[in-house]
């Protein structure tokens, strides 16, 4: 790309003096053709990307709760929608979402890290087969089996009520069931980049495998742990299908289940509530996403998609 500018200058310096005006005009035309239009396009793309978000932000500040009134962008600034959230179950749902999200993120990280460590550092019978099986299982979404999840929790609840329908613990367990398949590969690759000499020297110094895992490896793989934690959190945060069938009573709902109820009825007057709730709920996710962005991009390229 620097080639063009180079030849550009060579060519222009070769011209006679006194044509400065036309030369800068030519250069400007050239700049517009090669670079300038990219700014114009950027404006279009920015509008496309950001408009819905600006709209929801403006709707959240609009004191009227209806959909129709929120079309006048930033015509009002009022925090009544945010205050009104306190009268709904929003904060209960928010807390539920955080509980489910954090628990499944922590569980997914621990299980995935342990499995990735085993696959990366030990050579055992069935290792290759195990990795292949995980890769295959990963392709089958758990959500497709929601009928079986529903019926299984129904009968499991008769034995252990804490693992039955309407239990957050049961929902977390279902999410953790999918943890190994999705995350092991992501982590396995990263674990392989940690030189095995570290393990060996520790072993010579008399460390047990548990000490090597907790004291040496875990601190070294923190970036991938953060990525897996974030992706698991977002997956739990955004899941509707499983949480809808598992969590029956309103005080157990997550945000996805609860906020859907607000706006599923086209004429309901909960639009302002939804807007305020969406803005509040997205802030922590946005902050986490952009602070971990560097690692996430690497993780995404290693093969996960938005859930």
């Amino acid at each position, binding site marked *: 790309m620097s080639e063009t500018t180079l030849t550009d200058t060579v060519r222009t310096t070769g011209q006679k003096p006194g044509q400065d005006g036309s030369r800068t005009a030519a250069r400007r035309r050239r700049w517009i053709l090669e670079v300038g239009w990219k700014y114009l396009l950027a404006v279009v793309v920015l509008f496309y990307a950001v408009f819905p978000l600006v709209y929801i932000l403006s709707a959240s500040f609009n004191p009227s709760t209806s959909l129709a009134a929120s079309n006048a962008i930033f015509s009002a600034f009022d925090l009544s929608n945010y205050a009104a959230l306190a009268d709904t179950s929003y904060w209960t749902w928010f807390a539920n979402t955080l509980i489910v999200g954090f628990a499944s993120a922590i569980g997914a990280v621990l299980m995935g890290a342990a*499995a990735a460590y085993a696959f990366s550092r*030990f050579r055992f019978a069935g290792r290759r087969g195990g990795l292949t099986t995980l890769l295959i299982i990963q392709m089958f979404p758990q959500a497709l089996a929601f009928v079986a999840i529903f019926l299984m929790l129904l009968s499991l609840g008769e034995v252990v009520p804490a693992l039955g329908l309407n239990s957050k613990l049961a929902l977390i367990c279902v999410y953790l069931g999918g943890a190994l398949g999705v995350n092991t590969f992501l982590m396995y690759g990263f674990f392989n980049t940690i030189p095995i000499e570290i393990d060996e020297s520790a072993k010579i110094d008399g460390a047990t495998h548990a000490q090597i895992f907790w004291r040496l490896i875990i601190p070294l793989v923190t970036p991938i742990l953060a990525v897996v934690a974030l992706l698991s959190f977002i997956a739990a945060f*955004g899941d509707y299908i499983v949480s809808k069938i598992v969590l029956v009573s309103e005080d157990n709902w997550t945000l996805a289940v609860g906020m859907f109820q607000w706006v599923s009825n086209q004429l309901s007057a909960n639009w302002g509530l939804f807007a305020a709730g969406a803005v509040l709920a997205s802030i922590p996710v946005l902050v986490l996403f952009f602070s971990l962005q560097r690692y996430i991009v690497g993780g995404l390229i290693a093969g996960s998609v938005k859930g």
Partner: protein
Amino acid sequence: MSVPQGTATEPATAPSAPPRESHARAWKGLGWGFLVKLVILAVINAFGVLTIIAAAQVGSWIVLVGSIVILLVADVVYFTKRSIPLKYLLPGLIFLFVFQVFIFGYTAFIAFTNYGTGHVGTQEQAVEAALIQGERRVEGSPTYPLAVVERAGVLGFAITDAGEVKVGSAEQPLEVVAQTGDTGAPADVPGWQIVPRNDLISDKAMQQEVQELRVPVSDDPNEGSIRTRDGSTGAIYTSTLVWDEQAQTITDTVNGTVYSADDHGNFVAEDGTKLPTGWAVTVGWENFTRLFTDPALFEALSVVAVWTVVFAVLSVAIPFAMGLILAIIYNDPRVRGRKFLRTLFILPYAFPAFMSALLFRGMFNSEFGVINELFFFGANIDWLGDPWLARGAVLFVNIWLTYPYYFLVCTGAIQALPADALEAASIDGASRSRQLRSIILPLVLVATAPLLISSFAFSFNNFTVIYMFNNGGPAIPGAPYALGATDILISAIWDISGVSGGAADYGLASALSIIVFIVVGVIAAIAFRQTRKLEEF
């Protein structure tokens, strides 16, 4: 080929080979790690034993066997030195087996049954339900003084019958618990607490429960049950239906109709009338054949299947093209503020997907939506009600959601391109478009192909966007199970299953799930061929 690979893996296997010192000689006391392990395993064992006992009591044999196996495996793995890798793998594997592998198998099992509304339990439960439906108070039967009793949240009745206090609940038939000289309502019932009448009168919900409660007189459903209207006297109600287990028939004693059990889990009379409750039975391939032979269902499902494929392909192709083009354009170092632009470009990706779909649901609203209002000058375009507009709109939403992902991925891939190849090409006089066509595109495609395939599989089952945006609507006219024009297969399964209310057909839904599983499996196989990821380990 095999030689360098061999040398690459050798050093990894070598360190585990040197003879280790005996564990006894390396003994340095128990240590914290062991104590922590002991406590955790003690808790797990306690919980496991409780589960096993509870499962045995309820008679849930799968849970019983499952928890025994899990407990044994856990104890063996963590208390022996046999398999160190398994110590790391086991927690994840248990969850994987119970909550993923088992439910896949269970789905396959349900697909071969008629499990659903009217066919939920066993035959025994169906008989019981049928007899309850036909229950009438026995003419001239005695009334008994009755007290409502409670134990651990379960309500029951206690009656006084000829000097004996009998107590029972819905689950437990009457049994004699005490002798009494009184003839009034029992005042003291061993093992149960009597609910004071004042509580009963003030608690509407409990009244309702008491009126619906029926306590079987004995194990034989034909003997009837005790019911009460006022909470202080009870009477025997028996069914007008009589169950004959030997002949597998239920006879209506009022008009003499005989309902006999058929192999579809129903009690059917000779004139074809059915009792409303049936039981779950295995029906073989019936659910699968029904998907293809029921014309209304097949027609609607074909529309859904075609749309699923179109949606999945376009949801990958369009955002990928957009992401790639934008990535190439904004990789130009002459554009200033690229970092800033990139951050804003990927904002939709960081915004939680379900909220975006709900947000667009409001924005596309035909009457009040901001899209009609601002961009179509207040026109009343029915985005969510017209099949083609709705399909276009949901694609638009999904593109908005996913193009930043490809933008990120393609930017990463372009920046990782070998600089010397591009330099060599430009020295050789290759034009920019030629470089793009012959170097950049092929290399980027190789790097992103595996992602495209897994994204396709993901879009194929992207329930959240479809359901949140428009519930899969607008409805396909004449389609059974409320199938709609934007429904993809997974949301169609949701509609058919009826788990969210309405008539449920778990068997049919699971059969459709199995078919989608097979389709996904084929995609997975293609993915394996394409990526050859397996060669890496």
